[in-house]
């Protein structure tokens, strides 16, 4: 552990001894893992393994009972959600959560990392820089033609893309995606894989996903979780061959 700690300066994200217990039930139990800058890490595991809870803990939605989360040398466990966002962590939720009453343009504009204070938001002016940033992201997420549509009128897949776009415009150092292709049609799935490939070029990404084909396509390394702990970690071939993983996850 001490050797790992001394090395933690080189990691973008260092999670150590992370534990959260809900009324005695340990959803995440003494979990440790490390992300290199620009790494694409996929977390897999059976339902209830604690995958989503790990993301919740990193982004501050859930408070840890014990352990530490160091991001770029900064301890996140004591920060508030919006401070964690400002530190450079972006989070996409499993069900698309976009602002349905606003247009696609406004959704992206609200996510633009500027004017986060009350007074700043009052004085905010829509300038060229913002418009260009919005239009650029809109193109990446295939929504250029829908900029003026209310987000409520988008399809499920488009909403997922919009939420990814809302993260991209924040320019986070770490992107966390919770099942980005769940519930998508085959064509949408393909397009999303394309989108993720573009994104993963210049971000560190932490993804939860079940689709093993998809996982194999994008992952640098895979962490398999089971009952709140790391069951196995390594390349996709490594974990696929691991008998423990086959028993609890891949076998059925």
């Amino acid at each position: 552990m001490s050797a790992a700690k001394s090395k933690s300066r080189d990691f973008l994200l260092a999670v150590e001894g992370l534990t959260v217990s809900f009324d005695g039930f340990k959803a995440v139990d003494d979990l440790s893992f490390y992300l290199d800058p620009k790494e694409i890490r996929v977390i897999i595991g059976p339902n209830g393994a604690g995958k989503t809870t790990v993301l919740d803990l990193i982004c501050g939605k859930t408070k840890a009972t014990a352990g530490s989360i160091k991001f770029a040398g900064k301890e996140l466990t004591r920060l508030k959600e919006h401070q964690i966002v400002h530190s450079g962590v972006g989070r996409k939720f499993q069900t698309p959560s976009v602002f349905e009453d606003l247009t696609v343009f406004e959704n992206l504009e609200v996510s633009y990392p500027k004017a986060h204070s009350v007074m700043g938001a009052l004085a905010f002016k829509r300038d060229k820089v913002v418009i260009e940033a919005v239009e650029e992201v809109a193109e990446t997420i295939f929504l250029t033609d829908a900029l003026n549509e209310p987000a409520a009128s988008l399809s499920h897949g488009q909403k997922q893309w919009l939420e990814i776009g809302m993260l991209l415009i924040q320019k986070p150092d770490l992107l966390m995606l919770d099942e980005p292709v769940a519930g998508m049609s085959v064509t949408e799935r393909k397009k999303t894989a394309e989108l993720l490939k573009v994104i993963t070029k210049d971000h560190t990404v932490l993804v939860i996903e079940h689709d093993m084909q998809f996982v194999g396509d994008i992952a640098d390394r895979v962490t398999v979780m089971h009952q709140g702990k790391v069951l196995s970690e390594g390349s996709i071939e490594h974990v696929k061959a691991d008998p423990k993983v086959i028993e609890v996850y891949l076998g059925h």
Partner: protein
Amino acid sequence: MKTSSPMKWFVSREGLYYLGLAALLVVILPLILDPFRLNMVGKYLTYAFVAIGLVMCWGKAGILSLGQGVFFGLGGYCMAMFLKLEASTPEATAIQSTPGIPDFMDWNQLTELPWFWEPFHSFSFTLLAVIGVPVLLAFVIGLAMFTRRVGGVYFAIITQAIAAVLTILIIGQQGFTGGVNGITDLQTLKGWDIRTDEARNILYFVCVGMLFLVLFVARFVQNSKLGRILVAMNAQETRVRFSGYDVAAFKIFVFCLAAAFAGVGGAMFTLIVGFMSPSFIGIVGSIEMVIFCALGGRLSILGAVYGALLVNAAKSGFSESFPELWPFAMGALFIGVVLAFPNGMAGLYQTYVMPLEDKIFKRKKVEAVAAAEPEATKPVAKKTDDYDPMIDSYSPEKS
């Protein structure tokens, strides 16, 4: 050939809505109503201040407060305290055992002015307090509730409890507050008699002026990025938080803004009606305010004004003929609004009247666009037609 943008705004559709309201309040009603009725309209308008605040707070940001009467009352009491002190000169109160203090204090065996009454000798302090006291209380409540993420029904219940507590406090502390009667017998404002017909007329126009000031502040906030964040927060609070915003700060802001509007309304109420009493602060008063807002349309600041006017006009008309039936009519109205048209009159207007207007406006617009840029538009031009990113405004609900 300079068409400045304010000029353009006045002939835009939204500008016309505001002009229409201004024409109604400044020209039509003063012409057709006698001074007594006009004074009553002025009173209804003071409720509109609260309703506008509720549109921002409840309609936009989704924070339902059932205690807006508290802020209305605080603004009103601040103004009433100033007027009462002015009416309680040692000469006018010479028959009291302690001359120079308000009459109700004397009846309650107080022998000197309580410390918190002292600053209300100053008119400028009073004006500050009319906004400052409600905002301060709203800030404290907001800080306590929103940073702990108390919201929804729980917040509504707490605000209602605060309304109840404050009413009991005011009624109980008769010597300091005038008790259940409130602060009455207000006469002059800086030597100007506010009870004459002429003064009441002038106060009516002051009230209309203040109302438009508040409307423009509300409009500015609603069209700013902050306004969009409020709408976003209403449905997806978590997403707003993970877009890097401190949600509690925004909630506190809009709650304080609504309190400030209510405070101004309360002060105008005291001036127009000539007294202030705890009955406007309590639970019933606070809930009535929510009904004005809901009926007018909880997403529309102009709708809130019409809501306050119409419900109160109906209330007066109804209670003049069938006083005991009014509460039932009011209850039925509220249930009707919630069930049948949740966005109130403004919602109905948008659904049924605006499409007709659209036809007229679209035709003009298409002609103008065609004249301005002949065919050099991109293939997406059909959509960019009303997507003009340089205009920093949010258009879907403008009524």
